């Protein structure tokens, strides 16, 4: 079912104005994203460049282990799983993350399940992840500002906005971080270790145990989404309304979500469905092992397009939430408003309405 058909289905069920707003916000979000391609290019560059040093490090490990071995030939032209296992047996640090999960769609499964199963990441990865999150937190001000204004703000404007909102976002990040930390440090083990073990200890069918785990995933994922939603709209309110207080913005975000719950959720569902469609497409086309030379680069380009698509969805998520907010609570005093479109002057009107020559 396409998103559009789903939207139409909801429409026919009589879910009208709020669904319409969500759908138009979703479309508006895309419009804003497409209008600012440099922004996507920038976040892609951030992702790529942060990954690059680690990639170079890992490449050095792989090359050092292969040395002048003939094993490299089969590893280059296809796969040499014997070598791979040998490499893993001696690997430390980053090398330990070089598992078959790096191939094709397994990447997505590994990473999502890594988050939901609260898998601890090794120090080099944790550092890179922390830098990436800090980078995003810093740039978020500029990104939101750009999408809210709907007009070019240029590099200096972008970084001015990033800087202006950066401190507020750091305060927000501390609060959100504490909540996430509590969720992963306490709620997750309580749920997935203690309660899961208690509930499934007597189960002798795997599907029943999986059902319990799936319910826990939905519950825990739901909590994460709820926190995420509040954080998202808090950022929107901080930027669009130039709020100084992170705590005040959180309260305002909660208020907005509560009073526009159906629109907010409908938009979240639309965005999530878009993400699932992308993941499904990726599951179908994700390159496998491949060879070297052209096929390697072709596979890499396809994979980078997938990464770009993921980033597009991420910024579209932001842009559509801004669109939704602005569609509901727009007034002149907003800081990050679109460029004013002045009404025509009376003189212009007179000129425009004068009889035209034949």
């Amino acid at each position, binding site marked *: 079912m396409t998103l559009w058909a789903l939207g139409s289905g909801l429409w026919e069920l009589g879910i009208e104005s709020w669904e319409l707003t969500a759908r138009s916000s979703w479309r508006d979000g895309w419009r804003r994203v497409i209008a600012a391609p440099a922004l996507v290019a920038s976040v892609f560059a951030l992702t790529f460049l942060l990954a690059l040093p680690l990639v170079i490090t890992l490449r050095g490990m792989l090359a050092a282990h292969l040395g002048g071995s003939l094993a*490299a030939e089969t590893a280059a032209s296809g796969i040499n799983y014997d070598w791979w*296992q040998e490499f893993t047996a001696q690997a430390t640090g980053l090398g330990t993350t070089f598992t078959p999960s790096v*191939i094709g769609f397994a990447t997505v499964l590994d*990473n999502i399940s*890594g*988050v939901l199963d609260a898998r601890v990441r090794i120090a080099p990865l944790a550092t890179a992840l922390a830098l990436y999150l800090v980078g995003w937190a810093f740039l978020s001000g500029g990104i939101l500002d750009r999408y809210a204004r709907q007009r070019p703000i240029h590099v200096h404007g972008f970084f001015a906005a990033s800087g202006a909102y950066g401190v507020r976002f750091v305060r927000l990040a501390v609060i959100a971080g504490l909540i996430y930390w509590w969720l992963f440090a306490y709620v997750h083990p309580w749920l997935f270790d203690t309660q899961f073990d208690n509930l499934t200890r007597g189960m002798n*069918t795997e599907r029943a145990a999986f059902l319990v785990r799936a319910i826990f995933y939905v519950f825990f994922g739901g909590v994460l989404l709820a926190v*995420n939603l509040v954080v998202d709209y808090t950022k929107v309110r901080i930027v669009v309304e130039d709020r100084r207080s992170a705590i005040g913005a959180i309260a305002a975000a909660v208020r907005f979500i509560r009073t526009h719950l159906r629109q907010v959720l409908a938009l979240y569902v639309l965005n999530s469905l878009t993400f699932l469609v992308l993941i499904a497409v990726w599951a179908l086309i994700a390159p496998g092992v491949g060879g070297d030379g052209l096929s390697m680069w072709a596979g890499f380009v396809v994979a980078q397009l997938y990464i770009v698509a993921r980033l597009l969805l*991420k910024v579209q998520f932001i842009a559509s939430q801004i669109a939704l907010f602005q569609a509901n609570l727009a007034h002149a005093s907003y800081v990050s408003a679109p460029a004013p479109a002045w009404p025509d002057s009376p003189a212009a009107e007179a000129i425009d309405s004068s009889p035209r020559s034949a």
Partner: protein
Amino acid sequence: MHTLRPFAAAILLCGAIVVAVTARQQPPVEQPSAGGPTSPPPVATDARSPRNASYEIDARLDEAAKTIRGKETIRWRNITDLPTNELQFHLYWNAWRDTESTWLRERRIAGLFTPPQADAWSTMDVTSLRLREASGQTRDLTTDMRFIAPDDGNTKDRTVMSVPLGRSVGPNESIEVEVEWTAKIPRPFARTGWIGDYYFIAQWFPKLGVLESEGWNTHQFHLATEFFSDFGVYDVHLTVPRRFVVGASGRQTTRTDNADGTTTHRYQEDDIHDFAWTASPDFLDLTQRFEHLTLPAVDIRLLLLPEHRGQADRYFTTIAATLKRYGEWFGAYPYGHITVVDPAFQSDSDGMEYPTLVTGRARWFAPHTTQLPESTTAHEVGHQWWYAMVATNEFEHAWMDEGFNTYATARVMAEAMNSNRVESRYFGGFIPWSFRDIPVTRIDNDRLAAFRFNAEADAQWTPTFQYWPATAGIISYNKTALWMHTFEQRVGWPVMQRIMGTYFERWKFKHPRPSDFFDIVREVTGHWHYWFFDEVYRSSNTFDYGVQEFLSERVDEKTFRTSVVVRRYGEATFPVDVVTTFENGEQTRETWNGQERRALYVYEKPVRGTTAQVDPDHVLLLDVAYTNNSRTLKPSSGKASLKWSLKWMVWLEDLMLTYGFFV
């Protein structure tokens, strides 16, 4: 008459009461039958084994209390040349009686300990033990029972019980003992126990050790070991609630519904050395028949759980493939039937073997390219050869059944199940992903990957119960499979098959020791192969050969000097070939005995050398680092590392984006 009638009636009544009470309190004294206990029991002319430890068992499952109450009559014959004046019994379930058992102590030491919950514990208490004398009288030995700890002196361990007989039992003399016991069934431990209404009951009855010429061989229950017992005839009555589907070692001969809502299942089998059973109301009872031109037919019974319904064909195909290949390679499976149990989730009963009854292993979500249920099922069915028939001492030489069988299973898998792919599991291990580009090879099923980590853990000749518990499996399973496969590559499969087939035929229904196998190797190949077994069996050295240097330099206008230095990095030695390839495609092959630390080969030719390889055919599968076995002057490591680091980059970017959810 009138006066006598009440008197006679009273006497008769009293007599009847006395008889009834006596009958209840003491078993009737039976007259010794022809060929009574002290004479050798009549071993059937078609007996395949000595049948010197036979059991008649009558057991009842109390589902509510999770207990088994049982009574057994053991007919035991001393088949050694020495007399004995005691019996020794295994009481395996006492391994989970408390944390002081040797089994749980070893688990703690190995770092694998998680404290069992309150309802997990089990017990096995012998309530009565009587020796039936030649006269037919029984002598109560219950008070003479005592626990012993022959392996580690752990006085808290109650897994071995000694009972002085008060007299000597001479060679070829038989005795009969009656044992009553009660046992609390554990939550699953070491492949036995209950979960929900699924029961897998193994090592569940007081069981004799093995008397050898050196004395009783009755080891305590260890974390890393399995079992050892003599062959006999088993006749077992199991009474369980009627709703249960029951499977057991042997063939079911009767089934009797009782008035109390229970059913008594009778299973019998000859020439087996253990008996296990399972019960669940959920089993789907499926059957197929294995038929073969030259091998005896086998009725296959598959007790399948509904959540694995879709995997029935995979089970049957694997069982048939294993029966066929093991039968053709090693010798016929003679029992005519086999029961394969699809074990319940979390039952810890998966992947285990008992005579004529094995457990497989299946996952609810199992794409057709995954290894399960095939690999485990093939392995366990294969144990009918290497364990059930060739009954080695698993306490001391686990490699002789587990290792031999891992080697043979890998062969079956390579021949019959070659569509299997490497898989990873995600989301708590529930969701599999099969990598279509990575086939599971025979070497993977030899378990080379895990061996690398623990190649030096123990020398194989060390008695298994003394292996480091956490790595015992690596030495028993992986190392053996790898050296057997290596040996096969050296002597060729036809010779290897003759070795294994001869060994099987010679030692089935007996208890061979390592020397018996080595004797067969010598008999078939004409050599002792000391050099090989010294390395793989008597030492814990690792194998690692490599190309240390490879140079090809111009000497003059017409000549290049190509130098190859091959090196033995590990302590273990093995003869290896060294192949050097030149630009014109020419190859030189040298055979290096592998004894010295290094060897130098120099060639002067009109063309440059391109590659050098030590052990190019990968004969030595125990080599823990094969990547260093080759060297080329035009390495592809740049291309390979670029390709794989780019793959990894996508994974890393995706990881960053996944965590990007939080900002």
